[in-house]
């Protein structure tokens, strides 16, 4: 009798691991306890943790690589901030303090995964092979992107908060369909070859021949999507609606909320009265809080969540509990709204120094390694500076391109007017500009 209520018991999660994740869910406050951690603040590895297994399979090279990525992006970030101060960039959005959250999660993604960033995910960009100069172009005000999201699996930055989160869910739903179509195709291939087209149409209702071509051949490798957003953005309706869709359709998406404690001047308590990750339960999927300054824990939790999503078990919300060490952007002055005591307490949890202690203690990296990384960082910074000074500003004509994918008469008309208007300056005595406003 009655309606069957959806369960909030996540039976697919191995009991042991779930207990570990669950045990962190009941501190009920915004406190620091109750988060998954593999490296404590002294850099000591908690090998008894269930999640420690996935880390122990990482090679020493990958561990050093993760440190290198964190150091590289920190150095790059410092340089970009300086470039903004010198007037070379219109704005910069610093990530200092969030390196572990970004490198840990970014390196957990696979080539077939797809990432939807907000605007501070420079570290994730690095792990997805983005040319960092493209990020600088954006903040110099000469481009709104520049990289090809289809190649990098790293979507364009989004300045309207949370707007990318439903896209992430939709993309994940597309991946899910691809998997269904691929399965259908395999089944068909085993049957009569002549019936392929019919089976494909049946597997993907509404996908006509051209839509099928657009969506491309269903990828063989199951993938998942990561949607990045902040604690502030988590209040936007788009995030809530996304979570409803993701839960309803079991979309292979990992919601990765970097709770850096502040949405400009507003503390995270204004956005959520309960620990953010607890919200996931209400939508019907698991939520986990991870120490966002512990690169190994972030890596392990994200790998777990991505693998779960790829295998068809639906979404996960990861709340990476971290801290924005610097200003919100270079236009912001954090001394107006937060205390330096708080800042200091978080510096003590710094993600880089913690990981460095671990690597040294385990004998994975030595002075020579850290010196090499520092030198490499300086080179990355020097290149960033040189890149920015070499940038060539576009002309307004470029902005007429790509407004539409197909020709549009109004664009043609306005571009023609603009050219004639500009030409009038080259030769003041030329004829009068043609009709039409602007």
């Amino acid at each position, binding site marked *: 009798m009655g309606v069957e209520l959806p369960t909030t018991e996540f039976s697919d999660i191995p009991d042991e691991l779930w207990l570990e994740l669950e045990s962190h869910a009941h501190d009920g406050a915004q406190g620091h306890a109750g988060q998954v951690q593999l490296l404590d603040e002294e850099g000591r590895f908690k090998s008894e943790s269930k999640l420690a297994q996935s880390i122990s399979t990482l090679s020493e090279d990958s561990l050093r690589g993760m440190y290198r990525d964190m150091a590289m992006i920190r150095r790059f970030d410092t340089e970009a901030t300086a470039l903004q101060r010198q007037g070379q960039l219109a*704005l910069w959005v610093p990530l200092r303090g969030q390196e572990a959250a970004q490198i840990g999660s970014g390196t957990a993604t696979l080539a077939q995964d797809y990432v939807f960033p907000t605007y501070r995910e420079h570290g994730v960009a690095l792990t997805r092979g983005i040319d960092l100069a493209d990020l600088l172009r954006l903040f110099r005000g000469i481009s709104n992107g520049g990289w090809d999201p289809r190649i990098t699996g790293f979507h364009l930055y989004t300045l309207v908060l949370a707007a990318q989160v439903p896209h992430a869910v939709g993309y994940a739903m597309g991946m899910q369909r691809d998997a269904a179509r691929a399965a259908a195709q395999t089944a068909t291939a085993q049957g009569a070859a002549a019936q392929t087209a019919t089976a494909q149409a049946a597997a993907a209702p509404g996908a006509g021949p051209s839509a099928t071509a657009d969506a491309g051949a269903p990828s063989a490798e199951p993938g998942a999507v990561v949607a990045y957003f902040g604690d502030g953005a988590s209040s936007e309706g788009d995030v809530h609606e996304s979570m409803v869709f993701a839960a309803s359709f079991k979309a292979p998406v990992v919601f990765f909320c970097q709770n850096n404690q502040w949405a400009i001047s507003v503390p995270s308590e204004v956005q959520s009265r309960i620990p953010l990750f607890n919200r996931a339960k209400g939508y019907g999927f698991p939520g986990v809080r991870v120490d966002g300054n512990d690169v190994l824990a972030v890596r392990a939790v994200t790998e777990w969540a991505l693998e779960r999503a790829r295998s068809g078990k639906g979404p996960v919300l990861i709340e990476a509990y971290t801290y924005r060490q610097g200003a919100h952007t270079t236009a912001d002055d954090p001394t107006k709204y937060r205390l330096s005591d708080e800042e200091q307490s978080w510096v003590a949890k710094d993600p880089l120094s913690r990981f460095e202690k671990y690597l040294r203690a385990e004998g994975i990296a030595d002075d020579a390694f850290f010196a090499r990384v520092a030198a490499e960082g300086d080179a990355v910074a020097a290149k960033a500076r040189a890149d920015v000074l070499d940038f060539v500003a576009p002309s307004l004509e470029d902005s007429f391109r790509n407004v539409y994918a197909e020709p549009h008469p109004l664009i043609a008309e306005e571009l023609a007017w603009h050219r004639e208007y500009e030409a009038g300056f080259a030769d003041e005595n030329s004829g009068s500009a043609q009709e039409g406003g602007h």
Partner: protein
Amino acid sequence: MPTMTIAKAINAGLRAALGQDETVMLMGEDIGTLGGVYRVTEGLKADFGGERVIDSPLAESGIIGTSIGLALRGYRPVAEIQFDGFVFPGFNQITTQLAKMHSRSKGQLTVPVTIRIPYGGGIGSIEHHSESPEALFAHTAGLRIVTPSNPHDAYWMTQQAIACEDPVIIFEPKRRYWLKGEVDTEDPGASADPFRAHVVREGTDATVVVYGPLVPVALAAAEASAEDGRSIEVIDLRSISPIDFDAVVASVEKTGRLIVAHEAPTFGGIGGEIASRVSERAFLALEAPVIRVGGFHMPYPVAKVEEHYLPDIDRILEALDRAFAY
């Protein structure tokens, strides 16, 4: 008379409204402790408390939607949208609810919500920080839309909007926040009616209609034109909904030529509406077609090229040349 910037004048206007009426309250992202990203609300939380000046959660639909609820309960909320490009998560609430509440309740309900939106380009910012979406709202019946171009208007319009029984959107020209001018805090003078246009420069040969950030540009163009012996009248529209067509038509009947300039794209914009009204009401007075000067049909371009996108003195002069060529 005190001299202040537009930003300070809005601050003073908000302060006066908060002081006079305890149902007035401010809500928005970062408007409290920080005083807003442009410091327009600086000091107000300290003086009126966190119950009257609220740092809201980061959710525009929530900000507008709860403002509607508060207004239904007798409050006069003033909502800040941090930047023009971020109004759209709240667009649904503004256009389908706020604008229509009075008419769908057959006049039983009023929702005196004020929405402040810094708008327009010219500040060298990144995507979504430089837009001019006024036409999207002007097209929606039930909303009133004003835009000050000087501190005196900013001071009074802010209070007039809050006092208005209808929802009012104030588009604040962000690149003019630091523009200084005298503010008569005792007497609004000609600014007593926020929905009336002002002739800000008299002339006889052509009329240039502008509002918000372009008012100083049009005045400079008129000045340059005077050197060529042309007498240009400049009208600061002030209100985008309703539009003071009488003022525009009266001017055109005197000058015979009309240029309408705004930063927003010309296609589907306010300029088209004015051109059409004037050709209906003053066709015989026109010596030349009404010419629009504005943005192009493209997403707002990247900062490094915006100076070629934004109407400047030259673009207005070129339009005047065309009008005088008839």
